[in-house]
């Protein structure tokens, strides 16, 4: 009927169709991600936001308040310590477990059983990880009892409620919870390394450690870098684990950027200032994300 015929119609369909298929996702991303991001930026420049809002322009007042707050800087350092220590240990433990599991010295049966068990910590949500470690690290808990018996500590330690140990304790709990991501990815990576690389090294008389340093690690490097970046971004945002073990305390000993922001918003109800803090976190995340995307594209 139309001059264009079915073929032209088909082509037109092919041009419009992808946008139609994508539109529900784009609506979600637009309304629930881009709009809120614009809103949080707007909030951070308002006198006050959400509760008794005053939309008059506050300039950089909230940002100055944040950057002038020593608790903010303490939170930033705690976040950095927590994140760097977690990522490094996740990688070290994940690599050690992956190498052990990949060894041909163990039976396939044992390997598959251990693989299932080693992944377990990853399955639990942060709330439950917090519960588990509060039980384990309670002053009267099993960890203290073992350490005292072994003579490693003289008396019971209140791991989560003493200023000296709290940050290490939450970091430890997070290390325990997060290494399987590395382990699973590295195990997949190990299986992808060509066997002839090792055979060639054997002919040259290379030792086990030499093969590890000169073949295995370099071959795994792309995976190590990309998982480290993702782990870094995610660990930086950890909230429930810290909220439910120490709540950022004692005093500010385990305050991290997420708990600092949360308290500003929902304990002090200073949502405009919390927005400034949230935007700061967002900028750090965007920086790291751009780095990550660039790395992924280079691969």
């Amino acid at each position, binding site marked *: 009927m139309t001059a264009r015929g079915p073929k032209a119609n088909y082509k037109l369909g092919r041009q419009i169709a992808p946008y139609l298929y994508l539109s529900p996702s784009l609506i979600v991303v637009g309304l629930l991600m881009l709009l809120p991001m614009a809103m949080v930026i707007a909030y951070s420049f308002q006198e006050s936001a959400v509760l008794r809002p005053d939309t008059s322009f506050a300039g950089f007042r909230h940002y100055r308040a944040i950057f002038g707050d020593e608790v903010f800087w303490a939170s930033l350092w705690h976040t950095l310590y927590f994140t760097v220590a977690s990522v490094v240990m996740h990688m070290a433990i994940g690599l050690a477990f992956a190498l*052990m599991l990949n060894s041909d010295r163990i039976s396939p049966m044992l390997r598959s059983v251990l693989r299932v068990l080693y992944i*377990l910590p990853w399955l639990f949500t942060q709330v439950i990880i917090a519960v588990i470690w509060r039980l384990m690290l309670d002053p009267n808990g099993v960890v203290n009892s073992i350490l005292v018996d072994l003579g490693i500590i003289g008396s019971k330690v209140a791991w989560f409620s003493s200023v000296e140990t709290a940050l290490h304790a939450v970091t430890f709990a997070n290390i325990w919870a997060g290494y399987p991501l590395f382990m699973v990815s590295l195990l997949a990576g190990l299986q992808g390394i060509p066997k002839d690389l090792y055979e060639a090294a054997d002919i040259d008389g290379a030792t086990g450690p030499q093969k590890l340093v000169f073949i295995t690690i370099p071959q795994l490097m792309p995976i190590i870098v990309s998982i480290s970046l993702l782990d870094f971004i995610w660990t930086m945002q950890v909230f429930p684990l810290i909220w439910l073990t120490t709540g950022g305390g004692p005093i500010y000993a385990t305050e991290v950027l997420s708990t600092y922001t949360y308290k500003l918003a929902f304990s002090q109800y200073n949502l405009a200032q919390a927005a400034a803090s949230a935007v700061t976190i967002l900028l750090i995340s965007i920086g790291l994300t751009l780095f990550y995307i660039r790395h992924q594209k280079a691969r």
Partner: protein
Amino acid sequence: MARRNTRREKLITLALHVGLLAGLFFAAFPIYWMLASSFKTNGEIFALPPTILPHVFTFEAYAAILTDPVKLRFFFNSYLVAAVVTILTVIIALLAAYGFSRFNFRGKAALSTLIISTQTLPPITLLIPFFGLVVSYGLFDTYAALVLTYLVFTLPYAVLLLTGYLNTLPRDLDEAVAVDGGSSWTALWRVIVPISVPGIVATSVYTFLLCWNEFLFALTLTKSTDMRTVPIGIQLLMGQHAFEWNQMMAMSVLGSLPLLVIYLIAQRYFLAGMAAGSVK
């Protein structure tokens, strides 16, 4: 020489097994301890010396939780919200994945980067405007508040996972439908969806778990015990003055049950989901 080598070999193998055992203790003991404690009486939890097996094996903590209508409501809420979000996510993501996988169009690269980068958005940053939106639209303390906000975090993973899956399916299938005069819509529902069941299952599993585990939004966007989910229920138990440790552990075990069941039945799908963001 040869004998020394075999002794050396044996030593290495022994050291490896010691290492594996240490690893097992590190990974599994805390979980065992949670499980064992959930079957103890509250008085035995911090007994000295610690009891490796419960002296008095009791289901008291489980009974206390499973007969408390308030706590059962937490479980109902968690299942409901996770199920609704999973259904919505899979449908929306499937359409997007089909678009990404089967069409070339202007802005494709930019859109896929946008969706990938959503994965790394800090939840705390979105929480503040979400709180503003939820309050101003009267959605505070409703299921809708949770469903809508969870979608933002589940959708990117689901789109990535499903696009990856659809890319593995041959294009001849769609082309066969096109030759027969069928539209791409027909191809999607008649041909692609039926053979994508494994991908859809993996995506559903992962989406469900993301929702099941969510804490921050549930904490902030709901208030009444009628609307609280399991993670918040566990937190509420922790906040009480007299710690019912055995109940806390039992609730944690019950709260982990969906994960453990899915993990043990469908390990392959599960790991595919978990690793989705990282290895793609």
